[in-house]
């Protein structure tokens, strides 16, 4: 396994040119995500209307894995229903943790995130965006999450 976390061209592409890297002032949900161990601080705006994610964006600073994962997430959830987004969270979470099945499933571009599975110290970086998504969907009153606290 030679640096799989980075060698996926998709990861580096999204790190260099993050998609939806902007704030959404009218969004219904805002979650500030903090991963103090690595120093990732990202703010996510997720606009949920009529049970559907109308738009998503993020801002802030983070490592390649945090940025790429946030970019991929904001891209992937556009237009999903809340139920679909919940299900996607679970599948991506399983991809990054647990058995390390590697890429090759049916998650499309998100399969690139499978590389972090072999880096226990880095999983928090890649999962920051997804934990923020879960918080936005499940606990809209929460404004902040930290990888060092149980959500």
């Amino acid at each position: 396994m030679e640096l799989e976390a980075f060698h996926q061209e998709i990861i580096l592409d999204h790190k260099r040119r993050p998609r939806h890297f902007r704030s959404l002032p009218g969004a219904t949900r805002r979650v500030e995500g903090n991963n103090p161990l690595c120093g990732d601080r990202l703010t996510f705006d997720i606009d949920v209307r009529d049970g559907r994610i109308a738009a998503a964006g993020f801002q802030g600073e983070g490592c390649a894995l945090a940025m790429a994962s946030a970019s991929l997430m904001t891209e992937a959830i556009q237009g999903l229903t809340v139920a679909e987004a919940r299900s996607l969270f679970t599948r991506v979470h399983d991809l990054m943790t647990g058995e390390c099945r590697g890429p090759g499933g049916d998650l499309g571009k998100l399969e690139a995130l499978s590389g972090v599975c072999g880096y226990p110290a880095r999983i928090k970086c890649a999962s920051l965006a997804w934990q923020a998504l879960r918080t936005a969907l499940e606990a809209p009153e929460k404004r902040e999450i930290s990888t060092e606290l149980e959500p």
Partner: protein
Amino acid sequence: MTAAPERRPERPALDIEAIRRDFPILQQQVHGQPLAYLDNAATSQKPAAVIEAVSRYYREDNANIHRAVHTLADRATAAYEGAREKVRRFINAGSSREVVFTRGATEAINLVAASFGQRLREGDEILVSHLEHHANIVPWQQLCERTGATLRVIPMTATGELDLADLDGLINERTRLVSVVHVSNVFGTINPVERIVEAAHAREIPVLLDGAQATPHAPVDVQSLGCDFYVFSGHKMYGPTGIGVLYGREALLETMPPYQTGGDMIRTVSFEGTEFNELPFRFEAGTPNIAGAVGLGAAVDYLEGVGLERIAAREQELLAYGTQALESVEGLSIVGTAPRKAAVLSFVVEDMHPGDMGTILDHQGVAVRTGHHCAMPAMQFLGLPGTTRASLAFYNTFEEVDRLVKALAFAREVLG
């Protein structure tokens, strides 16, 4: 016949190859590359002499100390108290009564906060610095919350040094204790602690020095430093984890209530009351980490065998070489540029996050620390999410520094 003037024989330079053979863990590959262990400020590796001493203790001498009359108990007690005496000599404490074994520097600070801290009242002040490790912030913060005292902070500069311009204002009639770091774990800065001790003592305020990063790198003499407390950890100075030391001036320790209570720290116990044991046992409740103390004693022997002066000289060479080598890396800035430093090189590289660097360096067999180094206030002051830190020990080589530089170039290729 006149005698020639006495000259101390010059000790030859260190044989680094031989020294590296003393550290079994260094003889391995990581991700197919020889391990370059550059994370010594987090914890140092252990020489075979330390590993053997711990192992021998359990194989041959293990018993509880200070209690039974049998032979093994005598041997275990002698080994434990022998280690205390080695530590006393190592830091030049006046008496072994001033050497309290703890789990580490962190517990030593907590001991002082819990025990000495009982005399604090609302309106009192504790003075720390902006360079502190969390271990020298949080116990005082908690103490202030309990007592209504106030935590004051000596500011830092952009070069990772203490800003002592207003020291005389910060140390005032409300100050009850000054607790500062001797050598910064983030930047390697060797702080002018003598000056702080002098200013505090002018007002008869005791001073605690956090020496966790000092004892591995240069001789420490608590009497010439003049401090009232000095704390350090065994595992950062080539000893085992889970053992550390609180040095406390005897007259001050005598005035302090117990920290934890239980066996070994008592003289007599009845249900009417308890008479506490004498120093240092009064602060060592329960069966201590005997094997850890024995291992720390062996680490002291090892360090003295190699020679702290030679270790310091060797590490200064590595620091000078490493500083120059890193400065040649495009986009790299060294964070912490004090003129007096231990061999710690914290740095940031443009467009490269420390976390990503750490993973890529690891794949080149180069172990460094990335992140906030348990010093979030210092990182916040500098406006950095973290740094990458290479912390060198005397067993590191110039080639390992070169490999760090090469690995950084590779990281640039991957992430660029």
